[in-house]
């Protein structure tokens, strides 16, 4: 039985200058590279398959299986693209990971590229995090200078070049095919699948796209063994993952634990909900995952456990809201976000998110009628599963789940003729500003 917290990727974050190659190397960094080069690429894929690692970007697709879909008989070049476009509301794990420990990502990129036989890899980082981009740029430069990148790495005969690419502000580019469009210098609009990127991705060549945390998990799997990784977590959700607690909690922050930990356990570690308040609702994995409530404190936070209560593990972005927060206000704001970020390619999402905002605004202002709730659910029904990509689906999650759990609160807005909550009571400084 693993410890309650299992720092692996976060383990160097308290090191002095943890972003430097010297710091990473002093802790055994880049040793996994030689272990990998002593294996055949297929054996590296097998190790990652055996570890049970599932994608850490939200969808949870088995990473090793994704790699094995690359058709090695295709004569075109193969590419690895790291999705570092972390933008899902509530998600804040890849950014501190790249800031504090960029070399574990670079080492993971090298091993993963070797496994899929790519000689060129890209790290696509959202543009709005300049210091994180500096740290990754510098880590790549240091890795070249040390011979971990470039030609004939460690005398293995294997060559790899890595390009750090800054995005320019578009949530949709977290969707993997939209990301490829951005990386090809186009508007970030998703592509029709099939063909899947494994067959025709970047430049219509076989491409693997993985989340930062997935790729960063690879060096320890190779170095310590698949069984080591699989000794953490639950039956179908193996390994360690970073859980991000934010909102009305005493100690918000990053907690790296085996998958399957519960919110109750995490809250115990984080000192509970802020003093004098109670948990009202939370997202298990970002705003695109249906809301849960205090009833769900003991749900195992793994793919199956959260799925079993009608939500999704997503990116383990636990946004916690106490009883001072109006759920209609929260949902309206998320919906405005989806409307703003809809790429406009497909009608259900482009028009649907616009209409959701109209209906929710009316309700938040205490206008409209109870029939508007049914209309909202009907609108969700016309977006969910009918949109081109998952952005539209995600936009419906907060709306439908909030009506499911908090229908009475929507009605209270109608009875009250407006929002019955005082937003001042929810702020980080609420109750502290009164001085003589």
């Amino acid at each position, binding site marked *: 039985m693993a410890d309650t*917290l299992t720092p*692996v990727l976060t383990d160097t974050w308290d090191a002095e200058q943890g972003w430097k190659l010297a710091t990473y190397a002093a802790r055994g960094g880049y040793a996994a590279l030689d272990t990998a080069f002593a294996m055949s690429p297929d054996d590296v894929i*097998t190790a990652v398959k055996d570890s049970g690692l599932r994608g850490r970007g939200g969808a949870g697709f088995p990473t090793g299986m994704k790699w094995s879909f690359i058709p090695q008989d295709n004569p075109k070049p193969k590419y690895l693209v790291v999705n570092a476009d972390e*933008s899902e509301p509530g998600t804040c794990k890849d950014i501190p990971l790249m800031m504090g420990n960029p070399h574990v990502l670079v080492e993971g990129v090298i091993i993963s590229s070797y496994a899929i036989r790519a000689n060129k890899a890209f790290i696509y980082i*959202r543009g709005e995090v300049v210091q994180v981009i500096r740290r990754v740029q510098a880590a790549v430069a240091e890795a070249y200078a040390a011979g971990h990148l470039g030609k004939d790495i460690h005398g293995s005969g294997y060559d790899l070049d890595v390009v750090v690419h*800054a995005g320019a502000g578009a949530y949709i580019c977290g969707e993997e095919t939209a990301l490829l469009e951005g990386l090809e210098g186009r508007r970030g609009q998703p592509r029709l699948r099939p063909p899947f990127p494994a067959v025709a991705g970047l430049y219509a060549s076989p491409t693997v796209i993985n989340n930062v945390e997935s790729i960063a998990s690879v060096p320890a799997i190779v170095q310590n063994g*698949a069984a080591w990784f699989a000794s953490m977590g639950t039956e179908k959700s193996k390994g360690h993952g970073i859980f991000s607690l934010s909102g009305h909690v005493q100690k918000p922050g990053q907690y790296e634990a085996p998958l399957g930990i519960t919110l109750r356990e995490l809250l115990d570690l984080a000192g509970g909900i802020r003093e004098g308040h109670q948990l009202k609702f939370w997202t298990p994995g970002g705003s695109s995952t249906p809301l849960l409530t205090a009833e769900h404190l003991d749900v195992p936070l793994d793919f199956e456990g959260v799925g079993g209560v009608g939500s999704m593990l997503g990116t383990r972005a636990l946004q916690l809201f106490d009883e001072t927060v109006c759920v209609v206000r929260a949902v309206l704001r998320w919906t405005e976000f989806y409307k703003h970020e809809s790429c406009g390619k497909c009608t259900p999402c482009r028009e649907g998110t616009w209409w959701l905002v109209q209906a929710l605004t009316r309700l938040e202002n205490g206008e409209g009628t109870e029939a508007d709730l049914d209309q909202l659910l009907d609108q969700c029904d016309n977006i969910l599963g009918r949109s081109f990509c998952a952005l539209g689906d995600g936009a419906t999650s907060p709306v439908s789940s909030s009506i499911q759990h908090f229908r009475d609160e929507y009605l209270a807005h109608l009875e009250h003729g407006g929002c019955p909550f005082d937003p001042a009571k929810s*702020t*980080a400084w609420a109750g502290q500003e009164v001085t003589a």
Partner: protein
Amino acid sequence: MSAAPLDDKTLGELREIAARYPEARSGLLPMLHLVQSVQGRITPEGVEACAAILDISPAEVNGVATFYTMYKKHGVGDYHVGVCTNTLCAVMGGDEIFSRLKQHLDIGNDEVAAQRQGDSRTVSLEHIECNAACDYAPVVMVNWEFMDNQTPESAVQVVEALRAGHDVSSTRGPKLCTWREAERVLAGFPDGRVDEGPTAGEASLAGLRIARERGWTAPDPAATPAVEAAQKAEGTDG
């Protein structure tokens, strides 16, 4: 704000960006960042230059430049202040911070505040979406550097210090450079500020501190059974 012409050095750097990629057009996003770093916004001249280098039409470049929110058709201040008003930060006080700054600077969303007599630098204001720092809510970004755990008062102090030309440091990063300088880093030209700031902020370390106190670690690799060899023998179809 005046736009310096795109000189030979800049045109050379634009070509250099395009050459990083197997297909030149992949360079367009960083190339547009470089245009902004030189000209302070996306200019018609910058669009034409990118189009000529990539052998695509100016309309195609414009189509990209108008899609991504970091590209500005009109100028921003020396310091572009973004207040996160996505749900979590909004609830934690981002709405109040944004409203205070609008009032204090006497501007609306996505506008540049007037340069008063005595101000040596300008600031602009925008409400932004989630910037992946929710454990530091409410979050303000200045030129895309983190200003964590802000209040309306601290945000006003920051913009006033910036307008006065004082040095201001990110709470989790370097001394703030100008917006144009930051855009140059995004174009892939490092500026040497990488070693400023901490490895991680306090919230990032919350779990690690507890693990250290309680002696919790990941499992000892030596204590886990070596089953890979057996599994390898079973084959890899899948």
